[in-house]
């Protein structure tokens, strides 16, 4: 491991330790023992097969949106639109696979995955294109497209595509052939109630692909040049506009793939407002993971652990609620954003 990546690792770990320390103080003030609280987090998420399964389940969409945000970062853009992109991807799959169409699974699943990627990708490409063509800032445009995506999906799930004869705001269930398998089919220790599914394997392979793209391929090199500096790209004969559009397309596509996890692997329908900010959490995951696929994996795993553990806070502690996890995650984001300070600490050693 190079000196540089060691110092990045040390910096990140240091900011995590500081974040947990501050969280511990908050828990103390609230009148509980932080050691006991963290023990519950760890026991609930790691000490049983089901716990691990749920942690991985919560991790999967965070990993996808983390990769999405990070992909845009590499292209020099800030993608705040993962939330909208994942809604568009999921809605596209829910409508297509829930339309009564019937194809064999070996056609249906690839088509649905492609559709999810494409729908999210188009939602990502719009701000990319606007940036290249008119110079309008992607942060504003991705935020606005989030709102538009909420509006469209809300309308569709309340109106034309609502499942009939049911109070719940959901679309028709998707065809059996579009459903991906749950991991308990191949890992017998995980019980049937744990919805972690094929999407996890897909996502992990995407992490590897991400690493491969930026470390081994010429196009990854060119995208990084264009992301670091459009002036250097101009000097080196690299068309940075093309890479802005490409990186936003892939970023949108990766967020769109949350459909595989949610629609094809978990609920088998588009559930209104299902995400609750997974797209925004992706920003924190990418930040904490320092745009490195392994780092993003670990950050997403940590956040997955906390999401799993949060379910047991109410039950075990009188003075705490499940929302504690939001506080802890907030503190972590705060410290990850202050990493410059910790870097100085590490460098001076």
């Amino acid at each position, binding site marked *: 491991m190079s000196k540089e990546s060691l110092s990045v690792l040390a910096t990140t770990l240091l900011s995590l330790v500081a974040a947990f320390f501050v969280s511990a103080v908050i828990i103390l003030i609230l009148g509980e023992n932080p050691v006991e609280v963290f023990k519950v987090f760890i026991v609930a998420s790691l000490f049983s097969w089901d716990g691990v399964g749920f942690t991985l389940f919560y991790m999967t969409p965070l990993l996808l949106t983390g990769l999405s945000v990070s992909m845009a970062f590499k292209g020099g853009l800030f993608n705040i639109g993962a939330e909208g992109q994942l809604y568009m991807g999921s809605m596209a799959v829910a409508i297509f696979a829930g339309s009564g169409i019937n194809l064999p699974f070996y056609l249906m699943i690839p088509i649905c995955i492609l559709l999810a990627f494409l729908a999210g990708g188009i939602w990502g490409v719009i701000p990319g294109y606007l940036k290249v063509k008119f110079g309008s800032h992607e942060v504003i445009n991705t935020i606005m497209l989030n709102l538009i995506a909420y509006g469209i999906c809300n309308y569709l799930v309340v109106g034309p595509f609502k499942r009939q004869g049911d109070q719940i705001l959901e679309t028709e269930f998707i065809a059996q052939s579009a459903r991906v398998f749950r991991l308990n089919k191949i890992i017998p220790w995980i019980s049937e109630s744990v919805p972690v599914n094929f999407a996890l394997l897909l996502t992990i392979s995407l992490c590897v692909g991400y690493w491969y793209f930026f470390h*081994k391929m010429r196009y990854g*090199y060119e995208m990084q040049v264009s992301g670091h500096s459009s*002036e250097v790209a101009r000097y080196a*004969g690299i068309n940075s506009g093309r890479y802005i559009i490409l990186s936003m397309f892939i970023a949108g596509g990766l967020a769109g793939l949350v459909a595989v996890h949610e629609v094809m692997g978990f609920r088998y329908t588009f559930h209104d407002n299902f995400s609750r900010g997974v797209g925004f959490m992706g920003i924190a995951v990418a930040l904490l993971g320092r745009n490195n696929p392994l780092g993003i994996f670990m950050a997403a795993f940590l956040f997955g652990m906390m999401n799993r553990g949060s379910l047991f806070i109410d039950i075990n502690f009188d003075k705490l609620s499940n929302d504690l996890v939001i506080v802890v995650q907030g503190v972590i984001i705060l410290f990850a954003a202050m990493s410059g300070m910790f870097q100085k600490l590490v460098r001076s050693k």
Partner: protein
Amino acid sequence: MSELRDYALKMNNINKKFGDSLANNQVSLCVEKGKIHAIVGENGAGKSTLVKILYGYHKADSGDIYINGNKVAINNSEQAIGYGIGMVHQHFMLIEAMTILDNIVLGNPLLKLGMVIDYKSVRSKINALAKEYNFTFQLDDKVDALGVGSKQRLEIFKTIYRKTDILILDEPTSVLTKVEIKDLFKIIGILKKQGKSVIIITHKLGEVMEIADNVTVMRDAKVVANREIKNTSIAELAGLMVGREIIASRKEEVIAGDDVLVVENLTYQPQKSKKLLDNINLRIAKGEIVGIAGVSGNGQPELEQVLTGMIKTGVKGKLRYRGVNISQKTTAELRSSGLAHIPSDRNKWAYINEWVNYQNSILGYHAKRKYNIASCWFNFPVIKKMAKSLLDKYKVTPPSINYSTKSLSGGNQQKLIVGRELDSNPDLIIIAEPTHGVDIGSVEFIHGKILSARKAGKAILLISSELSELRKLSDRSFVICEGKIVDEINWQKDDDQSIGIKMIGGANAIKRN
């Protein structure tokens, strides 16, 4: 210790290590009151580290600092300012959107009632100081409207306003024109008269001889000599700096061949702007170096970018490269057909900050067939082997392919870039300011490499604001002024002064002013 009191500043046996490399090794420096003290040395010799320690950016590993004979500890720049030390950086620390007045006040406001800036007394204080030191400012002008020379004067004035006794100037003349340098030297003279001490870091020895009283020469993190200016010469200082005699490389006769690049009636006019390049005609043949001389800001960066395909819109005229019209060709296409480009602004264009040497050593050539497998996967063994031999061949130190390019000294960065471009086996090389901010040893090396490219039959366009460089390297040279080629230089007849007059628009322009 009584002798200490004669010195405004004394630094004693300063040591500083960065990682494994020694940046300052037992460095001592004595600056007399009311004297101008130059510190010269190649890039990476440790000059900047020394003054950064003095200004509180770095902490020395060991060693003492005395100011007016009193031992002090300087842990940050605030403390340094408190001890009367001021610094003007190479890159100015001004807020462009604010007025001159606000920039002066910033960081040192006079307050009314402890919270409101007392502009009235600030103004009168500034006016009094400006009169005393012979500065003129329009206090309510925005800083972004100022030229480089005025910005620098403002920076110096800021330090005066903060009651500086010891002023550090880091490479103060590298961004200035000849006239502006004269003005700067006048100001430095006034400061000296007022009893301030000035430390100038530079590698321009001619200026040292002109302005300084004393000089300290650094090499390889050590002080190698202290001299009084009246007892030394440029030749001695240059020799001390590089540790060997510099031999001016003699140009061999090369018979120029066919035209490689022909430029006809080239005009560049961006939207809503005047013409930045106006009707330029040039021919560059195989085996010749064509020079472009001029005061910076007269169309040189535009010429460089138009010829390399970096600017397309607003360009009119004919560009023919080996007989083919290239006005529609992209930079990537030009590069793959044998164009190399050593750019004027290496920090902006020539490498990626976050990357290490081997990654930067293929920048612009990364699409070459030999670096790729099936044209999209990098062939790392080939790339790394090439990078290693490049670093060795062009004497980049440290010659490590995994070393961060940003951390190399300016001279070594430039050698890496020169190597990358010259070793790409080009036919046409566009070179701009190849030795800007580069130490003397590297200048010699880079000049030698450019001359051997000429010998190998390359066509070279050399854009430079250093006349001595053009005199030494070019076969034919032209003067550019306000985007026009105004004259050809005759190196036998024209002296620096007459060329200088051509560069600022001819004798008429002087009369007009």
